[in-house]
């Protein structure tokens, strides 16, 4: 399942610097206007009004995952100005040199 959740970074108390939790015991988001993109609960990218940043290479993302994630971000923020992804480190081939 592909879903958007709050960004995992947790806000800290401005005086004590201790991690902050809300009244229900859930972590308070450090970046309330950012989202994590999760596939089966595991983070595969981040999103904001600026666009989508996948943290796994696009070659490892099935098309339906990629497209669902972008659709969810578009619904959340109204637009997806850019999409980027981690690139795999390449070993140059003779033909590319």
């Amino acid at each position, binding site marked *: 399942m592909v879903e958007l959740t709050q*960004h995992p*970074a*947790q806000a800290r108390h401005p005086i004590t610097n201790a991690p902050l939790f809300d009244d229900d015991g859930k972590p308070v988001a450090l970046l309330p206007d*950012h989202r994590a993109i999760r596939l089966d609960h595991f983070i595969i*990218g*981040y999103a*904001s009004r*600026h666009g989508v940043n996948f943290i796994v290479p696009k070659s490892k993302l099935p098309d339906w995952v990629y497209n669902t994630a972008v659709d969810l971000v578009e619904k959340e923020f109204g637009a997806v100005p850019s999409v980027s992804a981690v690139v*795999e*480190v390449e070993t140059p081939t003779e033909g590319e040199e």
Partner: protein
Amino acid sequence: MAIDTGLGATASFATLGLSLKIVSMDIGEQTLPNVNVSTLASTNFEEYIPGDLAEPGTVTFECQFDNAQSQIDTGTVDTLTVTLPLSSGGTTAATWVGTGFINSVKSQNFVKNELQMQTIVWQFDGGANAGTEPTFTAQV
């Protein structure tokens, strides 16, 4: 305990959307100045108290240079999320997050039998202009 190697760590720039071919990432030091409080009555050692404000630190990226990439802008304020490798037993990896900007880009050397590499340095801004201080969130 969730110890791990560095393989699998990623860097995500919210606005810049950079797709870097990262070979290594170095989270720099957060350093607090020392204030010398020694007096003529001090004995044996200099005496110090901690200063008030720590340097927020930098992140240094060593990357393969991609001849097709566009030039990297310095000075654009952005939010960086460094996601650590997910260690066994966890579902959400630890992160380093903060606002800042790229303050240096060292372009490649051209050397035979070696890949072209570049060095990019990110400066955390310490939360300037209502930004986000560099913050570590542990894996859960």
